[in-house]
């Protein structure tokens, strides 16, 4: 498909989109002005509408396809959440407008804070982090502030299991920590002996996802938390997989001290092709004084922003404003639609769907990574045998699934399991869709033994066939020709 720049014609202007009225910029010195106008496209409104509509049609999305991407929680995004978060009063409110111009909005935020605090079993929640990774950054910075506050500066290490998301070790480094990796045992739980050997007076904390990215609930969690706490360390909960236990188990009850929640996963705010997300951070009594600001507080029925003045030990601001307010509103609306009972059902039905798929796939001859374990809201199959027998690798199967009308599961993550698919159906999919997916996967396995090329050549029906990633990296073409932007 053509780039929008290729439809551009010099001198074409959308006068209806441009402001009218007198202009005068003569008071700005010429040396500060732009000499030549930027090479932005010059297209009509209709051309733009067609172009971007057609582009959108070149995407898979939840609204069009089953999207069982493990660890990403691609559940349905209710339309009401979008419509109601986009009421003109919400959209038109300036972030630095007086609090009296935002009592309705702040009430929603305050209630959301309270709900998240309850659901996580923590003491307080700050909504400000703008994505999961920023929530992690907040949490680890809080752990650091806690130790520093006690004058305990010898703690220089964060423990991270080898199955963790890449954001965990990257975050620890951003907070000035060294990372020590902890191996996973045969059964998918953390290797407790290795953990015992690693914990010491240098341990600032442990970052853990539970259920883990291996799709299992770590049964040793009580022992793990005792070990870490006994050594003076703290526990960080990566909320990426909260969907599996929402309303059933609270991270605070498991002994975690601080955590983030990915609202774009568990609370169904849209992924938007890569964000925006929201990663509120919740903490127990020990760490709550260090939460990032601003937070919403209430006094005599009036809501206000609490800053360092009220929360003096806070790690401070992480955004020039208050975070991804519009995402938080969508999450609030979703939470109100679900209510108390709906929260538990999220966990129940996402776990039901995953276990159902896991059993059906096992029956269809696929190898499970952890056959003795229950699935949580997701599970792993390994296509190692298929590769040995036919040469077809997990990526081939992923691409062939696209032809069958399904988005591929997460492939090659976690790195521990060879040729793996991490499959997460979510609670919003119906049984027939799951059955169809299982059938498609079985068809592909059959194709692989009958006609290897058919599978390794996939996809065929997508807007492009397989792309040359090596060329993309070796000869980076990262922007349309800049000709004309500079004299």
């Amino acid at each position, binding site marked *: 498909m053509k780039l929008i720049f290729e439809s551009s014609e010099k001198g074409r202007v959308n006068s209806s989109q441009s402001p009218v009225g007198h202009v005068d910029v003569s008071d700005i010195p010429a040396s500060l002005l732009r000499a030549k106008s930027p090479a932005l496209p*010059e297209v009509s409104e209709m051309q733009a509408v067609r172009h971007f509509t057609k582009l959108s049609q070149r995407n898979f999305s939840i609204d069009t396809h089953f999207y069982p991407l493990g660890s990403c929680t691609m559940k349905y995004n209710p339309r009401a959440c979008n419509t109601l978060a986009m009421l003109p009063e919400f959209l038109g409110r300036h972030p630095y407008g007086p609090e009296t111009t935002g009592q309705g909005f702040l009430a929603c935020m305050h209630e959301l804070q309270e709900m998240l605090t309850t659901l996580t079993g923590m003491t307080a929640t700050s909504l400000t982090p703008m994505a999961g990774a920023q929530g992690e950054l907040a949490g680890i910075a809080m752990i650091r502030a806690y130790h520093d506050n006690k004058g305990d500066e010898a703690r220089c290490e964060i423990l991270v299991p080898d199955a963790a998301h890449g954001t965990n070790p990257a975050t620890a480094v951003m907070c000035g920590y060294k990372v020590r990796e902890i191996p996973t045992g045969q059964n998918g739980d953390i290797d407790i002996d290795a953990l015992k050997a690693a914990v010491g007076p240098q341990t600032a904390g442990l970052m853990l996802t539970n259920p883990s990215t291996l799709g299992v609930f770590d049964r040793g969690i009580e022992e793990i938390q005792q070990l870490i706490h006994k050594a003076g360390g703290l526990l960080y909960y990566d909320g990426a997989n909260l969907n599996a236990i929402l309303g059933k188990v609270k991270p605070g009850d498991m002994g975690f001290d601080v955590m983030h929640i990915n609202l774009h996963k568990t609370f169904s705010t849209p992924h938007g092709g*890569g964000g925006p997300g929201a990663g509120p951070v919740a903490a127990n009594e020990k760490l709550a004084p260090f939460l990032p600001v601003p937070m919403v507080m209430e006094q005599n029925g009036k809501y206000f922003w609490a800053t360092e003045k009220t929360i003096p030990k806070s790690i401070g601001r992480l955004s020039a404003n208050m975070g*991804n307010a519009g995402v938080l509103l969508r999450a609030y609306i979703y939470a109100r639609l679900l209510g108390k009972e709906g929260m538990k059902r999220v966990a129940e039905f996402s776990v039901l769907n995953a276990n159902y798929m896991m059993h059906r796939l096992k029956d269809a001859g696929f190898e499970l990574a952890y056959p003795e374990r229950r699935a949580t809201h997701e599970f792993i199959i390994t296509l190692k045998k298929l590769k040995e027998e036919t040469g077809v690798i997990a990526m081939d199967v992923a691409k062939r699934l696209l032809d069958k009308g399904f988005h591929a599961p997460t492939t090659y993550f976690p790195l521990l399991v060879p040729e793996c698919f991490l499959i997460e159906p979510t609670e919003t999919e119906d049984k027939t869709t799951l059955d169809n997916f299982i059938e498609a996967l079985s068809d592909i396995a059959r194709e692989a033994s009958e006609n290897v090329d058919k599978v390794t050549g996939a996809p065929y029906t997508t807007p492009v066939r397989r792309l040359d990633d090596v060329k993309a990296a070796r000869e980076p073409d990262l922007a349309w020709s800049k000709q004309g932007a500079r004299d």
Partner: protein
Amino acid sequence: MPFIPHTKTEIEQMLETIGVSSIDDLFDEIPTALKSSGLDGVPDTLCEMEVSALMHRRAKEDGQYVNFIGAGVYDHHIPAAVWELTTRGEFYSAYTPYQAEASQGTLQLIYEYQSMMTALTDMDVTNASLYDGASALAEAVLMSVRIKKKTNRVLIPGNLHPFYKEVAHNIVKNQNIFLDDVSFEKTSGHITIQSLEQANLEGVGALVISQPNFFGGLEDVDELTNWAHARDLLVIAIVNPVSLALLKPPGQWGETGADIVLGEGQPLGIPLSSGGPYFGFMCCREKFMRQMPGRIIGRTVDLEGKQGFTLTLQAREQHIRRSRATSNICTNQGLMVTAATIYMSLLGPAGLMKVAQRSHTNTVKLVQTLTSIDGVERVFDRPVFHESVVRLNVPVPDVLRALQAQGIVGGYDVSSHFPDLGNVLLVCATEKRTDEEIENYAFHLERIISKRRLDPPCAVKANQT
């Protein structure tokens, strides 16, 4: 059951396939002691109609105001097509484009975005977005320290947005990186070579230049850039993307241009919405691209030689490099970039120029009108883009409260950040503000300052009760 499609029969069939008798059995690996005690504090479910009524009520409580406030977030007109298209389910509900063949729409769009941002800034490379302008500054500081290996200090202008400085400090301090203030000139509000000369350059790797500065004033960017480059410092430029239709792009500052460019993307078609979601943008010279944080899209070909787009240079990122990544960022602000790309396409170079010029013209008019009132004066004498600081002869919070009663958000109270400046207010008039609105603002400001009361109802009094 909200958003759960299962029928009773299907549930039974599924449980039978799994070989358990109830859904509860599926949680049997979780130690019993850990099972949730209850969810008191989470309200009962509401249906869509009830939630809709609730949200409309809350929205009404917020009300609607005429904004003369900016401070980094600007109330521009957003063409109707921008959000009509952006909220199409295919954009709205897609994931990060890891499976390129199933994500060509998002990928091509981001490539077009990258092309527009590099054109606007006249830089070589841009990423696919960061969270917001302030956190983008933190990432730029970290990037500069990676490039200038033996440094751990960056010079920050004293007239930078105070929250940008706070955020950058909060994010980089744990890696022992320091931000050193350069003071601004008192009568002009801008950064001079003289004040830069006061700085101790030991361990310093970069200079941050904000164009315009927090007070709306324009800096002598050529001079500052050349000064920094002559001392082997990188130049980190913070710019307003709308201003770049009118102002010299950072790629052309001084002899060789800025090295890293960042800013807040909100003015490009993103609504104010109480602070977000917005997006941060970041551009750099080609030689630094492997130090850039965040996602980058490249154009390539498929196995039939057809043009296609894919995530590239991923060896910088956390999902590949883990603890050695350039940043921990994963999810960014993709949908906001979608809106910005559509916004820039609809406006084109001429439209964006008109937005910039008209905002400037309106602001000049606003400042002239307000400063003709007794007790209101301009604070700095530099030319501005679309924002300016005025000093009042009465405390700012009282004035803002009284203006609010008239449906006006009158500006940003700068006094708390810069107490030395006295009672100062940062005001802005984008292209959306009409002559009538400006005159109405001036009418009420004059009345409030001279303590004349409207009758009835009395604005100030109404607010106190």
